[in-house]
């Protein structure tokens, strides 16, 4: 409904002016990597406007004697952090005066399961992470507003003006840049692939790739701040980051050259992928090959071993999460045995929600939403490289990296598997709890039934 492009009159009347503006201010600087400078002021102005809008809404709400529906980002109940099953049961034993860590069943043990269950019913950690993050201030986008009754005429007018600007000016500009960028990229990448000399080809292809990503970032008005650039990934390892949107790859690749991993698609995306791989060694898999874990691991290992090839960019969560937390990392990439360069990406939700809720929007709808937001503002932190320690297995290593990323990005570190978004009941978690409890009751040495997993 909001996706009808408002084709401006100026477009048809002043094509020369249009093209000059777009090329002069956006494309040419992007091609050559020149900064465009007004971003700070743009953000400042927008932020003060958003504060004004929320003030208006509060005033209106007071007028009507309503309470403004504010989303509590922290939840309904106080949760004890990191309380494991073992700790809770021990707590229970202590309170009944059992001196030894008696491995026996108590009727009261049911309380522990009961309370956890109630906490999950009242306030569930997991599903909250899969819907878009709620904001404190309204940013003039209908998608983040839930107080439709508290809109005054002034506010309505400014919202409408915002719509005109976003869909009438910003969206067409951005779409032009994106299309030009992709076209240039595909053509140049194919051409570069014809260069016989490897060193020269790598050099030029790097430049071409960076240009392509820069154009994409400009087409979304991406305002990215990179921190700790001295930790940038090197050619001997893989780069892992938390996943919020398909744009994550572009955000990272804007600053450094990576080799991407993924499934080969059809259509436009497939065309781009095939063009990319002509000039730089990306790892694309056919659909059937994706299931073969050993093949995937082997190709990754071979790539990493070659020091002329760029670091591989991997998103171990496996799916998009809403950027308030980091979910379980799949251990596959951590089994390769090379250096891992973690990176944390945190989006600022005030300017536009970057999270791709794939159950709500398709990719095209998502990109249109992105291009009609005010801006995509994010921070990227490069973390120091990490290696697997002696005696650590892949899962523990993965968790260690995940914790580092979560700590840096200010995200909550969760043990949940992001795949829960799609599947319904995961019996393995239940089994895990049962295992833990049986160990408490029977003691580790009596633990006889060892399930084959």
């Amino acid at each position: 409904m909001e996706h009808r492009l408002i084709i401006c009159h100026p477009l048809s009347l002043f094509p020369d002016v249009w093209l000059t503006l777009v090329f002069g201010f956006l494309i040419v600087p992007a091609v050559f990597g020149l900064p465009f400078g007004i971003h700070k002021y743009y953000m400042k102005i927008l932020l003060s406007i958003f504060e004004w809008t929320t003030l208006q809404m509060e005033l209106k709400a007071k007028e009507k004697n309503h309470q403004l529906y504010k989303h509590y980002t922290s939840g309904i109940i106080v949760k004890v952090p990191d309380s494991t099953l073992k700790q809770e049961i021990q707590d229970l034993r202590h309170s009944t005066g059992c001196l030894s860590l008696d491995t026996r069943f108590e009727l009261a043990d049911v309380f522990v399961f009961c309370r956890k269950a109630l906490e999950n019913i009242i306030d569930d950690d997991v599903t909250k992470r899969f819907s878009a993050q709620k904001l404190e201030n309204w940013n003039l986008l209908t998608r983040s507003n839930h107080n439709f009754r508290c809109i005054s005429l002034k506010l309505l007018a400014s919202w409408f003006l915002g719509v005109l600007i976003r869909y009438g000016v910003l969206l067409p500009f951005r779409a032009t840049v994106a299309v030009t960028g992709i076209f240039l990229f595909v053509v140049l990448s194919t051409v570069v692939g014809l260069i016989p000399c490897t060193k020269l080809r790598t050099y030029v292809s790097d430049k071409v790739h960076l240009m392509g990503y820069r154009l994409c970032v400009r087409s979304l008005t991406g305002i990215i701040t990179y921190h700790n650039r001295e930790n940038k990934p090197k050619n001997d390892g893989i780069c892992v980051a938390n996943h919020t949107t398909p744009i994550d790859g572009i955000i990272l690749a804007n600053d450094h050259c990576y080799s991407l991993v993924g499934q080969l698609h059809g259509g436009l995306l497939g065309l781009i992928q095939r063009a990319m791989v002509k000039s730089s060694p990306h790892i694309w898999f056919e659909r059937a090959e994706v299931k073969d874990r050993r093949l995937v691991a082997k190709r990754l290992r071979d790539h990493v071993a070659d020091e002329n090839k760029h670091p591989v960019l991997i998103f171990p969560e496996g799916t998009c999460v809403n950027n308030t937390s980091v979910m379980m990392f799949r251990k596959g990439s951590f089994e390769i045995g090379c250096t891992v360069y973690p990176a944390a990406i945190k989006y600022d939700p005030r300017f536009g929600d970057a999270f791709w809720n794939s159950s709500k929007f398709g990719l095209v709808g998502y990109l249109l939403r992105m291009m009609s937001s005010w801006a995509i503002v994010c921070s990227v932190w490069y973390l120091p490289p990490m290696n697997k320690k002696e005696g650590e297995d892949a899962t523990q290593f993965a968790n260690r990296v995940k914790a580092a990323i979560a700590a840096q990005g200010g995200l909550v570190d969760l043990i949940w598997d992001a795949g829960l978004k799609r599947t319904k009941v995961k019996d393995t978690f239940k089994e895990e709890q049962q295992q833990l409890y049986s160990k408490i009751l029977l003691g580790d040495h009596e633990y006889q039934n060892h399930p084959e997993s």
Partner: protein
Amino acid sequence: MGSSRSSLRRVPDGQQLLQETGFSAAVLLRLHQRFQFLDKDSRGHLRSEDLEAELSENPMGDRIVGAFFQPGQETVDFPSFVRVLAHFRPTEKNRTRGGEQPEPANSRNRKLKFAFQLYDRDRDGKISRTELLQVLREMLGLQVTEEQLQSIAERAIQEADLDRDHAICFDEFRKSLEKVNIDHKMSVRFLE
């Protein structure tokens, strides 16, 4: 807050629930939002699937979900939902009440009764050996053998069963949990 109370109009039985359960208006509103979130198809009531989806990792998930539903009923509406949750409010200390006032949902006795009924599925007032075995099996899954399960159940009954009828009635249950800090273990702290 005055404005909270006016928004309570949207909540079914809002005013009555306020008095009955002791939840504040703000918490009641939040619980209503949560209820609406769980009620994915906007039916106005929840079915067991809606609640079970939240408890996939809890071995006793199905049993606890069952506690929300009256015997024979397949749906739970918002007032019933909140009445069950009211059991988990922290107990108020030093609260004097007149003789006619009904016992509050979050009293120690009511919390114990809730836990007792988790065991006593057929509601005959006693936890039989079979019922105890069922609960244990849920909590332990396939991690223990049948013999281990039997011995655990046997020991638990022996300790609690005072009148030697091979079952645990509510008084025996209460007695065996005398020393447990029920309020701490069976309460959820709501953010006001």
